[in-house]
């Protein structure tokens, strides 16, 4: 039995090595994608195009606008007295935000110590609008402090010795706010899932489609040996790919690797069981490569949407969060990000490792038993 496994393994490796298409699909495409996608995958809100509708035209309004541009986060693309051009700019995409400073802005500030302001955002992309809003809010509140200080010094010296709490803020783990730190690990996981699952499904379905699976079934070889010979090479290749991807992340994108690589490798080993198991399951429910492709694709799409790769899982409704616990991709992405960016160790990631182990062995066992039923 071990002998036939060895022979079959050799055959699989030979087959993979011989076919340039498979080699490309397995090695070049994913790593190339990692490099390209990591550059494209950014939600970073760079400079926003700001249209200023300044109905006040005072020193105060000018100073406020100056604060906006000084941060480098806003680029004033238009400056008008009336609101209509700003509206149009928002509509045709020339501006992504409009700041409306009403007339009497300076007078109200000086007299009442309070003044309204309007910020109109293109909210087509809600997340982006949220970030622009928080930048604008920070700028306005800083300006309010400065304006308050100068108003007070003009007025009286009252409250000069008032106690003040000094609030400092900080983003941890990714102080440079580099999106690739966050996205590269996630994209890598997505790519090895796609490769692992798709290749497993296609590899077996192709034998089905060509009729060679039946030939194998009439040989004295046991199905378990056949499956082991099919899955093992892909498992090894996917692990290799994961390692290559991590090397690219660290050396090309300078993503920090603060934690232990061993923790990640154990996570990957378990995760791939689930990914390949899913591919095996797909191969039992489909008859042609075309179908296998579509079923795999739709499943991975669901995985992806609920993985936290693009949008935080914690923001989702409770029932989705519960469902997401069954998604191995979510646990694994969390694990890789925690190990790389936060330096998490064994004690920190058992919450991810445990479900990964359960899902890995569970999915694989279910698929194998289903495969047996189908072939008997």
């Amino acid at each position, binding site marked *: 039995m071990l002998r036939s496994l060895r022979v079959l393994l050799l055959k699989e490796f030979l087959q993979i090595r011989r076919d340039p*298409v498979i080699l490309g699909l397995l090695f070049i*495409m994913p790593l190339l*994608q990692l490099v*390209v996608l990591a550059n*494209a995958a950014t*939600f970073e809100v760079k400079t926003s195009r700001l249209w200023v509708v300044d109905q006040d035209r005072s020193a105060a309004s000018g100073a406020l606008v100056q604060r906006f541009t000084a941060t480098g986060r806003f680029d004033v693309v238009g400056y008008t007295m009336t609101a209509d051009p700003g509206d149009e700019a928002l509509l*045709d995409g020339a501006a992504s935000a409009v700041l409306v400073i009403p007339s009497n802005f300076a007078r109200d*500030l000086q007299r009442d110590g*309070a003044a*309204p302001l*309007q910020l*109109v*955002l*293109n*909210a*087509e*992309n*809600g*997340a*982006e609008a*949220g970030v622009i809003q*928080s*930048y*604008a*809010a*920070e700028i306005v509140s800083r300006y309010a*402090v400065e304006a*308050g*200080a100068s*108003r*007070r010094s003009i007025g009286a010296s009252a409250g000069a010795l*008032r*106690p003040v*709490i*000094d*609030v*400092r*803020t*900080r*983003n*941890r783990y*990714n*102080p440079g*706010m*580099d999106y690739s*730190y*966050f996205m590269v690990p996630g994209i890598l996981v997505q790519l090895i899932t796609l490769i692992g699952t798709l290749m497993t499904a296609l590899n077996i379905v192709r034998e089905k489609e060509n009729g060679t699976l039946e030939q194998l079934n009439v040989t004295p070889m046991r199905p378990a040996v056949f499956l082991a010979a099919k899955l093992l090479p892909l498992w090894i290749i996917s692990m290799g790919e994961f390692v290559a991807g991590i090397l690219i992340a660290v050396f090309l994108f300078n993503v920090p690797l603060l934690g232990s690589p061993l923790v990640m490798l154990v996570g990957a080993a378990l995760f791939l069981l689930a990914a390949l198991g899913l591919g095996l399951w797909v191969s039992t429910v489909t008859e042609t*490569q*075309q179908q296998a492709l*579509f*079923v795999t*694709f*739709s499943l991975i799409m669901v995985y992806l*949407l609920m993985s936290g790769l693009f949008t*935080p899982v914690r*923001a*989702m*409704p409770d029932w989705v969060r519960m469902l997401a616990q069954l998604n191995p991709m979510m646990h694994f992405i969390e694990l890789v990000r*925690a190990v790389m960016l*936060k330096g998490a160790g064994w004690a920190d990631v058992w919450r991810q490792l445990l479900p990964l182990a359960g899902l890995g062995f569970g999915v694989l066992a279910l698929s194998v038993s289903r495969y047996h039923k189908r072939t008997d």
Partner: protein
Amino acid sequence: MNTTPTHRTAPSSWRTLGAFMGKEVRHLLRDRQTLLILLLLPLAQLLLFGFAVRTDIRAVRVLVVAPEPDATTSALQDRFAHSGRFELLPTTSSIDSLDVLMRRGMVDVAVVLEPGLASALRSGGTPQVLVVADGSDPNTGTTMRTYATAVVRDWQQSLGAAPASVRIEPRLRMRFNPTLESVNLFVPGLIALILTMVTSLMTAISLAREKERGTFELLLVSPLRPWQIIVGKVLPYLGLAMANVITVLLAARMVFDVPMRGSAVLLLSSATLFSLVGLALGVLIAAVTSSQLAAMLAALGGTMLPNVMLSGLIFPVASMPAPMQVVSHLVPARWFIEIARGIMLKGSGLELLWPPLTILAAMLLVLLTLAIRRTSPRLA
């Protein structure tokens, strides 16, 4: 080679085309499983996305680190507990546990207070408060930090310990998508995705399959002209694609109230144009590849991924590095998404959308020429 007089080919060639197309439609309808997947998958994605994916940030877990808990610090906790956006974790007194909790992803934001804050305030000192956010995800981190800082500032104000300040209240108006529904942004992108899948991927694979099995040669020696084979193969998929667009639009409308501010006719015509581009790409891919697997690989790498990643579907084009932005001009979905979002969310009409439409039409022309040239009697 064809010596048949032209006046006789015309009617009969239309009839053979019709018969061939009928066969293709039956093929498509007979494969129930694939058809079901193709019709239901987009709907499932729409529902999942609409219900599951939120871009607003809620349930932020906040930890207050207070070395000397007193009335001042519990006032801060109250503010967090009642803000609605935060989940207040039990207060700790040491910063050490913060490190562990944040590393394990159990805390999103921490507010670290100094020991002796209250007495420092009384004696007119300037105690420090640190607001730390888990910034591994830069945008989420920044937004969470801003929310937490706002709560801290309110608390500061209530203690009378805020720096002297004027009140400037920015009123916000979220144009085009006031409730920040991510599903509104996603639907146009989802349509682009489905159209790519059905047009490029399906046609490429289905043509490659005929080539792999040798049935394509049979078709080539039949009285059908190459263009007829292509048209017959491709048109049923166009029908399927449009059926998908319409079901997704209806479901988006009925379930999620996704707006349709512009002309639906313009949107459907644009979708048809975009589908034709996808079909031409699919035909081209099938022409240059020789196996299903190779066609699949080329279709995935050449159409699906750029259409997902470089089109603004998920990641805004404006955020990409300059070279990527240049490349994105070559991605058909980028233009279609611009058109669809313009029509659905902004109510734009032809006067604003003619540039992307022209670009799509030009792409179609180029791809079609290439596809026909490569498919013609090119059989070894």
